[in-house]
């Protein structure tokens, strides 16, 4: 294997040079070769460069999803020497507006389906932007809608022209992905080229990926699991197969139709597939490497998956966005693993090469082997911090006493391994939960509801609970006279769908525990009793 490329784009270009006629992407019922994908991406990059706003930060936003424009947009940002900032049309426009403002992006690539909400997204942006609509032949209507911004369309980005890529340094930002923040606003995690290249090269080695592989792409690009699919594949000349929103409802059919060989998803999606009847003996013979991540993995899912995909290795991957996709891995072994499972949950395993761990008590002192504490991680996958947020960066990225390196505090509760044991995962130490694999700070939801209602007594809980987190959110509010329908509508304008409470319980008083805090456990029991 040749040495690791210094930047993500040099790795992608290396694949394009080695395998120009092999498929790089399947999307919208069409397949694109590396040459075609690079042609389209280069045309986007050239169009944006030609109209670049002086002094723009090296970040290009991509407001596009599961379209050629979405994937070519990501590569175009990288070709410009920029990091990409993925945006999601299923997020409320003012959350997207916040991400745009925070990142300071002056160039945005927009696909046809996302363009409809642009009025709401841009209404609070004062600076002029460059907007590229590669799916629009005629942009005159858009020009009239956004007179302050420079508008480019398909005719400004015709594939075929040559483009000289700008290769960034290893410490330059490769992407900024936003995660839920407990104080009410999302945090933009800055991941460097070194971080993602280190990770994706390791993943490609771990899965012995070649140009013949076909990767699934189950996560939205705003979720950091997506970088596994895209870059592990594209660093080896493999193909990324992106299902449409509708195809995602039946992932089993998609695996078979596209002969997927490498699978990644949150465990919830496997549970979903089981419910649809897809997890049956020998149903996915094409799969040879399956990874689950983003939530605790139960042994039940592993057993069903082994039967369904008899030719597939199974990995459990763990890692917050801040430590670049997955930084701890566990390979399922049919003989040894059943003995290592704890309470039905598969261990998260062992830190990647180049990564080291500490397991600490609340005073950040290392606990003894076999004891539980917060997981801290250091090494080549530790990201650069939160964009324009030195305060929150300082709290999460720390140098513990007696150490020289920066450790990221994951907030996850694990057991410190004894000897060669794998790391066991026990959930969160704070009020963060996983809803369908998405990190959700309950405090962020509570802060938004307090802001909307003026009520102080607000408790958000994950409900109904699943082995992997929760299916949704339910909320208790103290007080009277709330217009709940209206409240729900207003919350949906501020939070993504997976964070919007499914149900509100208005109570005269929220019970307190012995420390005078809201008794979350008592409320949890009320929900359980109501079933």
């Amino acid at each position, binding site marked *: 294997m040749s040495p690791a490329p210094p930047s993500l784009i040099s790795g992608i270009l290396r694949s394009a040079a080695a395998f120009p006629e092999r498929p790089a992407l399947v999307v919208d019922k069409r397949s694109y070769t590396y040459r075609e994908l690079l042609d389209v991406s280069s045309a986007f990059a050239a169009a944006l460069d030609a109209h670049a706003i002086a002094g723009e930060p090296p970040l290009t936003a991509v407001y596009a999803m599961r379209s050629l424009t979405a994937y070519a947009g990501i590569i175009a940002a990288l070709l410009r020497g920029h990091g990409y900032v993925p945006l999601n049309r299923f997020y409320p426009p003012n959350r997207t507006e916040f991400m745009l403002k925070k990142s300071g992006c002056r160039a945005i690539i927009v696909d046809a389906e996302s363009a409809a909400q642009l009025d709401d997204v841009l209404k609070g942006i004062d600076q002029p932007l460059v907007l590229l609509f590669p799916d629009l032949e005629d942009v005159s209507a858009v020009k009239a809608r956004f007179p302050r911004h420079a508008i480019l369309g398909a005719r400004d980005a015709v594939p075929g022209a040559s483009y000289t890529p700008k290769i960034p340094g290893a410490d330059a930002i490769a992407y900024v992905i936003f995660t839920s923040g407990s104080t009410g606003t999302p945090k933009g995690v800055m991941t460097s080229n070194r971080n993602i290249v280190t990770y994706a090269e390791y993943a490609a080695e771990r899965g012995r990926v070649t140009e013949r592989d076909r990767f699934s792409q189950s996560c939205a690009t705003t979720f950091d699991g997506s970088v596994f699919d895209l870059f592990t594949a594209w660093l080896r000349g493999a193909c990324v197969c992106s299902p449409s929103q*509708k195809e995602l409802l*039946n992932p089993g059919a998609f695996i078979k139709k596209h002969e997927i060989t490498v699978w990644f998803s949150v465990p919830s999606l496997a549970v979903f597939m089981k*419910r*649809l*009847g897809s997890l049956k003996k020998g149903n996915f013979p094409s799969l040879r490497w399956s990874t689950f991540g983003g939530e605790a993995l139960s042994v039940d899912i592993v057993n069903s998956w082994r039967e369904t995909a008899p030719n597939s290795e199974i990995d459990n991957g763990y890692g917050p966005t801040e430590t670049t996709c997955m930084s701890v891995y566990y390979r399922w072994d049919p003989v040894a693993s059943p003995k290592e499972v704890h309470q039905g949950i598969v261990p998260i395993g062992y830190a990647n090469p180049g990564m080291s761990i500490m397991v600490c008590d609340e005073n950040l002192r290392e606990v003894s082997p076999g004891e539980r504490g917060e997981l801290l991680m250091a090494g080549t996958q530790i990201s650069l911090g939160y964009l324009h947020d030195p305060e929150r960066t300082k709290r999460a990225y720390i140098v513990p006493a007696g150490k020289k390196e920066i450790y990221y505090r994951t907030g996850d509760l694990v057991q410190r391994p004894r000897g060669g044991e794998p790391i066991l995962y026990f959930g969160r130490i704070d009020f963060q939960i996983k809803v*369908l694999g998405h990190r959700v700070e309950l405090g962020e939801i509570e802060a938004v509801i307090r802001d909307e209602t003026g009520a102080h007594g607000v408790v958000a809980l994950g409900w109904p609970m699943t082995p992997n987190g929760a299916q949704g959110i339910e909320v208790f509010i103290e007080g009277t006279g709330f217009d709940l*329908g209206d409240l729900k509508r207003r919350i949906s304008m501020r939070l993504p769908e997976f964070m919007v409470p499914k149900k509100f319980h208005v109570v005269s008083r929220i019970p307190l525990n012995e420390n005078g805090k809201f008794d979350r456990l008592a409320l949890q029991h009320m929900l359980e009793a109501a079933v």
Partner: protein
Amino acid sequence: MSVVKADEVKRFIAAFLADALSENNVTENEVNDDLDLMKRGIIDSIDLINLIAGIEEHFNIEVDFEDMDTEQLTIVGPLAKYIEERAKMKTA
């Protein structure tokens, strides 16, 4: 095992989703064959699974959905028809 009729399934869907339908201002009359529950924002993927579980429990059947055209999975008419046909196959 009793025979499941597509019309019964449709009626069940309307009743099962009554709250979500009214929240989205969809009247009972609008619950026709062409209504795409997901496109209209009435259900998300989790609600779909709950709906399917509800249908299976109510009609005491188990349906394998993998062979259904994904484009039609959330459209009332084709979904009900598929369930009717699958239930028939199981009974036969």
